[in-house]
Structure formats: structure tokens, C-alpha cells
């Protein structure tokens, strides 16, 4: 068992981490907004943690509070992400559909070029030797895991709340929601900020997890990867991004024995998954569940 965790621990934690990032896309989507900004906030969070963790300016602070520096990093990353999300979100969320997605992609790219050029972000090399919270990669499950559980619980509560119903209403029909007295802009920005804060915190947790941080984290490729997680997982329930993120991020590793052709197969899986699972993995599961219960009821009736 220990050996298994030694070897696959990093991958398992990565699956949780990517699930969380997929979830960060899900909240705006709950309110009908296709935002691909998460990698930007993920990068911001990572830089926040890496800078607080390594910059000499923060040395006295780190020395005085010890391991509490880590939760502090998460907090600061969350707050900064929220502020940036408000600045970007308020103008950008007037856009819809693919236009919003494109605007958020632009945001991610602008941020990337900025990080590549600033001194504080370490330029192309980035920031390395980021202080560690745990010795082994597997132990990072103790921060990503609880965050995942918390987010699941949060999503569950959110869906049942007034806010969640407002999101739903906007997703179904923004104009109708508006006429029902729901302020679409407010809720759209709120959903965007929730996703941004989550991505920022995940980034702050990931900098120690990956040992280093640079401008290659949080790019257009990541935007598209997260979108694939949500769509292949299923965009109609929180389980979708969770499953999609976990499975798609594990796929290239699972295919590792195929060597040279592993990414070809990975691509084929994406194609077939989108064609044969239009409602995502979550959709397939709920259909299976339905057909099973239906069958058992039918069998029960006949008996």
C-alpha cells in the first residue's frame, strides 16, 4: 500500500487538484456563464504562495508565524483572486456564450505575458525552492482532500439556497430571471468570483505541491483542458467536473505503458467521449442508475 502511494500518490493528488480546478469552472457555468478564466486565477494564487513563501520581504513574517504561513497564503490568494475577479468580471460578464469564453482567454494570456516580464514573478524561470508543507507528495491530499469535501458540501448547500436557485434561473433564461426580480449581473459576478477564489486557493496550494511556479502554469492549454473536464464529466451537476477532472488528468498517466502512442489514444478518447457521452460521465452514470432502478421496479411489478 505504501509503495502504491509512493508511486501514485502524486497522481491521485493531481486528480483531486484538477477536479477542483474543473469545479472552479462549474460555478460560473451554474449561472450559465462559460468562463475559461480559472487558469489565470490559478496562476495568481500560485505566485502569491510562491512569493510569500520565498521572497525576502516576507522572511520576518514567515519566521514569526511558522506553518501558519500556508493558510495565510491561501487566504491572501483567495482575497486577491476575488478582487481581480471583480475587476475583470464586472465588464466581461456582460458578454455571453463563446464571447465571454474568449474574453476570459484573453485575460489569461495577458496575465501570462505580464508574469513572464515582472521581476517579482521570476521571469521565465519563475520561482523555485518553494517551502514545503509536507515531505511526500501524497500527504498533500490532506489539504486538497478537505478542500474538495468542503467544496462538495458548499455546492450542495449552494444548489439548495436562494442564490443557487437564482443561478439556475439565470442559466435557464436570463431575461426571465431579470423580470422575476433577480439581478443577473450581481449573481453572474458572484458565481464568477466563487470560481476565481477556488482557483486562486488551489493555485496557492499547488505551488508547494509542484515545488516551483512559473508562467507556464495557467495557460490557454489549461483553459481548454478544464473545459474538457467539465464537458466530458458533465456540466449539469458538481459530480461532472469532479469526475471529468479526475479521469482526464489521470488518462495520460494510465496510458503511459503505450509509450509513443499514448497521446494519440488520449486524443481519440476525447473524441469518442464527446460523441458517445453527450451528457458527460455524470450523465452516463445517472442514466445507468435510472435504467437500473426502472428495471428493478419493472421486475418487482411483474413479480
Amino acid at each position, binding site marked *: *500500500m*505504501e*509503495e502504491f502511494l*509512493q*508511486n*501514485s500518490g*502524486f*497522481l491521485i493528488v*493531481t486528480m483531486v487538484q484538477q477536479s477542483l480546478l474543473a469545479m472552479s469552472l462549474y460555478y460560473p457555468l451554474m449561472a450559465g456563464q462559460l468562463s475559461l478564466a480559472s487558469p489565470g486565477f490559478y496562476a495568481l494564487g500560485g505566485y502569491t504562495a510562491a512569493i510569500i513563501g520565498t521572497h525576502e520581504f516576507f522572511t520576518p513574517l514567515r519566521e514569526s508565524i511558522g506553518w501558519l504561513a500556508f493558510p495565510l497564503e491561501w487566504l491572501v490568494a483567495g482575497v486577491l483572486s476575488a478582487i481581480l475577479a471583480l475587476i475583470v468580471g464586472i465588464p466581461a460578464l456582460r458578454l455571453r456564450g463563446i464571447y465571454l469564453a474568449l474574453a476570459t482567454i484573453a485575460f489569461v494570456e495577458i496575465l501570462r505575458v505580464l508574469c*513572464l*516580464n515582472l521581476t517579482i514573478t521570476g*521571469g*521565465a*524561470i*519563475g520561482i*523555485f*525552492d518553494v517551502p*514545503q508543507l509536507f*515531505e*511526500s*507528495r501524497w500527504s498533500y491530499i490532506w489539504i486538497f482532500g478537505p478542500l474538495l469535501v468542503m467544496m462538495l458540501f458548499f455546492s450542495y448547500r449552494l444548489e439548495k439556497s436562494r442564490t443557487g436557485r437564482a443561478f439556475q434561473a439565470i442559466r435557464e433564461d436570463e431575461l426571465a430571471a431579470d423580470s422575476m426580480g433577480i439581478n443577473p449581473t450581481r449573481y453572474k459576478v458572484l458565481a464568477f468570483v466563487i470560481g476565481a477564489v477556488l482557483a486562486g486557493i488551489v493555485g496557492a496550494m499547488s505551488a508547494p505541491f*509542484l*515545488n*516551483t511556479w*512559473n*508562467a*507556464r*502554469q495557467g495557460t490557454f492549454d489549461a483553459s481548454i483542458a478544464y473545459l474538457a473536464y467539465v464537458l466530458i464529466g458533465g456540466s449539469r451537476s458538481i459530480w461532472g467536473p469532479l469526475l471529468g477532472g479526475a479521469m482526464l488528468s489521470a488518462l*495520460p*498517466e494510465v496510458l*503511459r505503458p503505450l*509509450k*509513443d502512442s*499514448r*497521446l494519440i489514444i488520449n486524443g481519440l478518447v476525447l473524441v469518442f467521449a464527446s460523441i458517445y457521452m453527450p451528457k458527460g460521465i455524470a450523465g452516463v452514470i445517472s442514466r445507468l442508475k435510472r435504467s437500473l432502478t426502472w428495471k428493478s421496479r419493472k421486475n418487482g411489478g411483474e413479480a
Partner: protein
Amino acid sequence: MKRVAIAAISLLAVATVAQAELVGKPIPIGIGVAQTSNVALLGEEEVNGAKIAEKYFNDNGGINGTPFKLIFQDTGGDEAGAINSFQNLMNRDKVVGIVGPTLSQQAFSADPIANRAKVPVIGPSNTAKGIPQIGEYVGRVSAPVAVVAPNAVKQALKEHPNIKKVAVLYAQNDAFNTSESGTFQETVKKMGLQIATIQKFQTTDTDFTTQVTAVLGANVDLAIVSGLSADGGNLVKQLRQLGYKGPIIGGNGLNTVNIFPVCGQYCDGILIAQAYSPSADPKNAINNALVKAYRDKYKKDPPQFTAQTFTAVQVFVEALKKVEAATKKKITQMELAKVREELNKQIRVGTYITPLGKISLDHEGEIHQENFYVAKIKMNPDNKTGKYIYVK
């Protein structure tokens, strides 16, 4: 039933911990470089070097008669991929040491993990500052370019004493080129020359018209280009096509035969700062062997990353031999953890005569390389192939 299962599992766990693992036979050495993604252009050169080294050293008796085998795990181009590759090599493939990863950024991510697991790593192409300092198990055979660059500038001045104004161009999204360019800029200033313009680009760029016309507008006498093969080669080509006639210095990233097809006839005359030269020392037997094997197989001279990866494998092989000499035991009869520890010690002892010339790794794992080279590119009449003519 359940309890029995748990007991069995814990027994197994105890057993694996208690029963110390021996090194497999043939002795496994890991190669974790980028075989996919857009970094694969560099990774492929490394794979080729590793494969030639595997054949060469096994044909020459392996490790005192015991053969070794290389195990390849693709890192892809990102940090997580590098970690996954290293984890697989260390835990599943049970390698004694790892050659990799391709990029410095990946090294900052994956090397600490190998270091904590006490698995020796030799970087074949990680040149950023701070790599050997990651930990005691991390070393490299790729010299940080600070020592290489000044020579090229000196050579250019020797050939063209009238140089006054210099243009510096570099790929800003690449760690190596950014730091190399920094060194170039310092050198230029120290020599009392004027930096007339600094132009930045991306390794993914192809069109350099803006940068080139800025250089032309600045009326410089020397252009120094730090880039990788595709972008650097294109930049040189466009400089020449648009009428730049002065000397060009290429950074170490241009030290690859891969640029020949890119800039073709326009490659002619570029001064290249080299950490490896296929032709500098005709008496270097091991380099001759590498060059011959490479030519036989690929019909051209080996690029620097190929030579450096070959060297990394060579360092492992020779250090393994030293481990056997020191412990008076066969590697295959030793515990894996012990071999890794001893191997790491031996890597840092003594010198190696490699295709890079005479090198050693200091206690930190930093390479000390006796010779650096400056070469001038001479293109063949077909304008597709060429050679590096060693000038210093």
C-alpha cells in the same frame, strides 16, 4: 473475512518494507526527458544521445561485465509530467539514478522529489541558476552558460576590432536564453561596447521582422542572438535576408545542427558559443566514438544535447563502476537504496573524460568543464548541412 484481508495487506506492506530490494539486472538507469509536447524537439536529441550511450557502454562491458539498461519515461513538456515520470522511474522501474528532465523549470519541480527519495539525478540540459542547489542528489552536466558566453564576444572582437554598437536579442519565455542573454549583456558592457538595442521574442515566434528592422535601424556592428533552434534560426535568416551584414553571435541554444535547415545559407559565419563541439579535439577518443556512432546512424554530427545526455549516462556508468570498486561488491547484489546513496557519492568523485572534454562534478553537483568552445558555422554547398568549425 475483511479482517483477514487487512491482515494480509499489512503483512505484505511489512514484507515489502522489511525485505530490502536488490538492484535489478540489467542495472536500470532512468531517462526522464520530453518525448512528447512542443519540448520534444529538444527531448528527441536527448533520447538519441542516451540510446547511443546505452549501446556504446554495454558493448564495452557495461558495469564491470554487468549490462545496464535505460528506461525511458516521457515527461511531456510540463511540471506535473516531469514529476510523474520521475515517480515511475524511482518507484516502479527501480532505477539507480535518473538522467533528466529536459527543461530547467521541470527540474525545479521534479528534482526535489528525487532528492528527498535519495535518488541521484543528472540534468542533461538544465542550465538555470540554482539547479545543483536543489539538493545533494541533484547534479548536472550542462554548464550554466555564464562561462561560455564571454568567449564568443572576445572572438567576435578579435575578428572585427571595430565593433562599437551591439544589438542583443533573446527569447524571453525561455529560462536558459533569458539568463544567457543577461551574461552576454554584462560581457558586452564590461568590454566597453554599447548596447544599442535589446529585442525580446518568444520561442514560439516565427516572424521577427519587427525585431530585425529595429536592429537595422540601430545601425549595430554586432548582433547577439539567444534563442532555440527554430526561433533563433529564423531570426538569423531574417536578419540576413533583410540586409544585416555584420557579425552574428549565436547563443548556446543555436548549438545544434537543427538550425542548419532553418537558416540555410544564412547560417554561414555565425559564431556559436558552445558547451560541446563535435570537432574541437580530434584526440578525444570517446567523442570520436560518439560522433562516429551518430554519423553512422543519422548522417550528421551530434548536437550538444545529444552529447550532454550521452555524458550523463557515461557519468552514471563510470560512477557505478567506482561503486563496485569502493564496496568490493557487485551492484546487482546490493540493496537499491544503498546503491543510490553510494552512486551519488561516487558521481562527485574524480574526473570524467567525456565528449564534452574533461569534466568533474563538485560536491554540489555542479559541472566543472575544462573546455568551452567557440565555433563558426560553415555551410556546405547544398545549404542544408554544415559544420561547426572550431575557432577557440
